C-alpha cells in the first residue's frame, strides 16, 4: 500500500506540471495585452502597462515566465494580482467557503440520492421506482442555472422564505445553494445506487444471508449497502472535486464569496495570476481526492489490493 501511494504521488508530478503549464499558457499567451481595458473608457498610460508587464514577466519567453512562476510557487508564493493582492491569501479566504458549500451539497446529494436510490432499487418497477426514475431524468435534463434562478426567484423574492443571496457563508445559509448545486449529481447518485442495489439484490451472498435467517433489515443495511455503495462513493469522491471548481454558476447566482466567483471574475478581468493560482490548487485537490477515493475503495472492498 505504501509503495502504491508513493507511486501515485510521483505520477502526480507530471500531471501537475502539465496542467499548470496548460492553464498558464492559455491565460497569459492570449494575443493582445491583458492590461489594456483596465482603465475604463480610455487608454491605459503606457507606463502603467509596461510596469504591469514587468511585474508579470510578460516580456520573457513563455517557458521562462512559467519557470519563474514555478520557482515562486515552490516557495509557496502564488504571486500577486494586478490589484496588488496576494493570490495565496485570496485563495485561503475563498477556498474554505467553497469547501463548505461543496460539503453541504455532498451531504444533501448523498442522503437524498442514496435514500431514493435504495428505496427504488428495493421496489423494482413499483410506483416509487418510476417516480424516482422520472424525477431524476428531469433533474438531469434541466441546466443548473435554470434551477438556481427559479429557486431564487420563487422562494427568495416572491415567497420571501429564504434570503435571496448568501449574506454570510454559514452552514445554514449554504443549504439552499447547496441544494441547487447538488440537484444534478443527486439524480446521478440515485440512479447509480438504484442500479447497484438492483444488481446486488440477486447476488449469491444476499441469498445466503437470507437463507441463514438473518433479518431483512440487517441484510439490506449491512450486507447489501456496503457492497452497493462502492461505485456510489467513487462517484461522490470525484464529485467533491468537481463541486470545488464547478460551482461557478451557483456561486454567481447566490453571491457566495467562494472560489467559483473568484475565478470567473478573474478570467473576465484577465487576472492571469489568480486564475493560474486557483486552478493549480484545484488540480492538486482533485489529484489528492482521486487518490483518496482509490484508497477508500480498497478499504471498502477487501477484494481490491494495491501492490
Amino acid at each position, binding site marked *: 500500500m505504501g509503495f502504491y501511494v508513493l507511486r501515485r504521488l510521483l505520477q502526480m508530478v507530471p500531471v501537475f506540471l502539465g496542467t499548470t503549464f496548460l492553464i498558464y499558457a492559455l491565460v497569459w499567451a492570449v494575443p493582445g495585452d491583458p492590461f489594456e*481595458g483596465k482603465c*475604463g473608457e*480610455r487608454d491605459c498610460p503606457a507606463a502603467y502597462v509596461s510596469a504591469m508587464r514587468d511585474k508579470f514577466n510578460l516580456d520573457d519567453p513563455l517557458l521562462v515566465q512559467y519557470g519563474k512562476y514555478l520557482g515562486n510557487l515552490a516557495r509557496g508564493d502564488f504571486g500577486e494580482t494586478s490589484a*496588488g493582492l496576494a493570490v495565496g491569501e485570496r485563495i485561503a479566504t475563498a477556498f474554505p467557503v467553497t469547501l463548505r458549500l461543496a460539503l453541504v451539497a455532498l451531504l444533501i446529494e448523498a442522503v437524498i440520492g442514496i435514500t431514493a436510490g435504495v428505496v427504488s432499487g428495493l421496489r423494482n418497477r413499483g410506483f416509487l421506482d418510476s417516480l424516482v426514475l422520472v424525477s431524476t431524468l428531469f433533474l438531469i435534463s434541466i441546466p443548473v442555472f435554470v434551477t438556481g434562478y427559479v429557486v431564487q426567484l420563487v422562494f427568495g423574492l416572491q415567497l420571501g422564505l429564504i434570503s435571496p443571496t448568501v449574506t454570510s457563508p454559514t452552514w445554514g445559509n449554504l443549504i439552499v445553494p447547496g441544494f441547487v448545486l447538488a440537484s444534478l449529481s443527486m439524480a446521478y447518485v440515485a440512479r447509480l445506487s438504484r442500479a447497484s442495489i438492483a444488481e446486488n439484490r440477486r447476488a449469491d451472498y444476499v441469498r445466503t444471508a437470507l437463507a441463514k435467517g438473518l433479518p431483512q433489515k440487517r441484510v439490506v443495511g449491512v450486507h447489501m449497502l456496503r457492497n452497493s455503495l462502492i461505485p456510489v462513493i467513487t462517484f461522490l469522491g470525484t464529485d467533491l472535486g468537481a463541486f470545488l471548481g464547478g460551482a461557478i454558476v451557483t456561486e454567481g447566482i447566490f453571491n457566495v464569496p467562494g472560489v467559483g466567483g473568484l475565478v470567473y471574475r478573474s478570467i473576465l478581468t484577465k487576472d492571469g495570476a489568480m486564475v493560474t493560482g486557483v486552478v493549480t490548487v484545484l488540480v492538486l485537490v482533485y489529484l489528492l481526492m482521486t487518490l483518496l477515493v482509490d484508497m477508500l475503495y480498497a478499504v471498502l472492498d477487501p477484494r481490491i489490493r494495491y501492490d
Partner: protein
Amino acid sequence: MSRARLVPAAVAVALIATGCGTPETPAGSNSDAGITIFNTEPENPLVPGNTTEVGGSRVLDALFTGLVEYRNEDAQPVNAMAESIETKDSKLFTVKIKKGWKFHDGSPVSAKSFVDAWNWTAYGPNGTQGASFFSQIEGFADVNPKDPDGPDGPEKAPAPKAEKLSGLKVVDETTFTITLSEPFAVFPVTIGYEVFAPLPEAFFKDQKAFEANPIGNGPFKFVSRTVGTDIKLTRNDDYQGDDKPKFKDLTLKVYQSRESAYADLVANNLDFMEELPPNALAGQKYETDLGDRVVQRETLNLQTIAFPLYAKPYDNAALRRAISMAINREEITQRIFEGTRKPAESWVHPLMKGYQAGQCGVYCKYDPQKAKEELAKSGYTGEILLLSNTDGGHQEWAEAVANSIKNALGVDAKFVPSTSFGEFRQKVNAHEMNGMYRAGWIADYPSIENWLTPLYRTGASSNDGLYSNPKFDAKLAEADKAPSEEQAIRLYLEAEKMLAEDMPAIPLWSQTTIAGKSNRLKVANLHPFRKLDLDSVEVA
C-alpha cells in the same frame, strides 16, 4: 479674468454651508446607524492615483476629499479642501488650501501632501493608471517619457529626466502653484477627480502598509477589508469638511452580479444600489418590487456609437449619417429601456452648462426614407457591424440598434458581441475595430469641454476612432483660450455643430439612472456622477 469662472464655486460653498453644512442631526434619524451599499471588487490597489475603475472609486471617494468636489444639485464644482484657486492667464494657477485639516492618522494635510501625491502619480516608473490626468501640467514629458515603440515593444521607455513635475511648486504650508504647459481654462473644474487627492507622509514611507490600510482625509476612515466580501469604513469624527455624514458605519459589500445584489435590495438586506440590473427594469418590475424605495435622477452619461474612421466603409460620412438616421431612438428607449433613457440630439450632455438641444439636427432623427437616400449617396451596400462588450448590460440595446438599422436600410446589419470589456477595449485602443462600436462616456468633470476635446480632437486621449478635422480643432483651441466662460461655451457649441455633417460618433441617448434604497433609509440621493451622495443619507 478666470476668477470670474470660480465665483459660482465660491457662492456654492456659501449656499451649502448655510444649507446643511453644520453637523446638526436631522430630527428622527439615527446618526449612529450603519449602512451597507453595493460595490464590485476593486481591481486596483486602493491608492487614489492608481484607481480609475468604479469598484475602487466608491471606496476612495468616501476616504478622500480633494481640492474641489462636484455638488449634488448640478454637478458644478465647489471648493472642498481648496480655500481658493486663482489664475490670471489660465496657465499659472495658485491654490490655497484650508487650514486645520488632518489625515486619519493625525498628520496635517498641507500643500506638500498634494504636490507629493501628484508627483508620485505622474512619475512614469510608478506605472499608475492615473498618470495621464497630469499630462497638461508642465514637465510631464520629463517625468513620464513616451515608450518609443509602445509598451508591448522590446524597447524600454527611456528613463525619466526628472522625478518631479516642474509645473508644481510648494509656496508655503498651505499654498502651491500649478503651471500648465498650455493655457487650459477649465483646468480647475477637472481636479475633483479622486486621482487628484492628497496623500499622507505614511504612504511614501510604506506603500504596502498604506494599500492594506488606506489613510485619507475624507469623511470616512478605513476600518477593515475582507477581500472579495466587503470593505468597512466608519465616520471620521474629526472631519473638517461640510459634507459630514449623518450615519456612522459604511459597509461596501462586494457582489458578483447586479442581479444578486438586486435580490438583496428587494429583501432589504442591502441599503443602496445605484443602478438596477436589466431584470429589474424589464417591464418596470422595480416599481412593484420597491415602491417608494426607488431613487432616480438624470446622470451624466451619454451613450454613443463611434466609428473607426480608419477602416472602410466607415470612413464614408454619408454612410455614417445614413446609419444615424436609421436608428429608432424613440422606440428603443421606450421598449428596451422602459423610458429610462432619453434620445440624444447633441454630443454634449443635456445637463451641461451651455447645452444646446438639436445640435445634431435632422441626422439624429429617425427617418428611414432620408436614411435610404443617404445610403444611396454613399454607394455602400455591404454588411454593417456593430461591436460591443456584453458584460455591462449592453447586449440588448446593441442588438436592437443593429436590428433597427437592418430594418430601416435593408442592409445586413449585425451585432457582434465581445464577452469581456477588457477584450473589447483592447481592440478599441489598438485601432483594430472592423465595425462601429459602443462608446459610452461618463463625464470626468462637468464641463462642455469634456464632451468634445477628449473624444473628437485630433490625437486626443479618447479619440479612439481617429477623427480629425482641422477646423474643429482650431475652434476648440480658440475656445480653450477664451477670456470668459460664456464666450468659451459659445465657441465650444460652434465646434460641436461641426460634428453633425461628419458624424464621427452617433449620439444615442442620455440616461435617467434608476437606483434603489432599503426601507431603513429615510433619504438617499443619487449624484449626477451615478453614485450615492453619501452626504445626503439619513437612516430612519
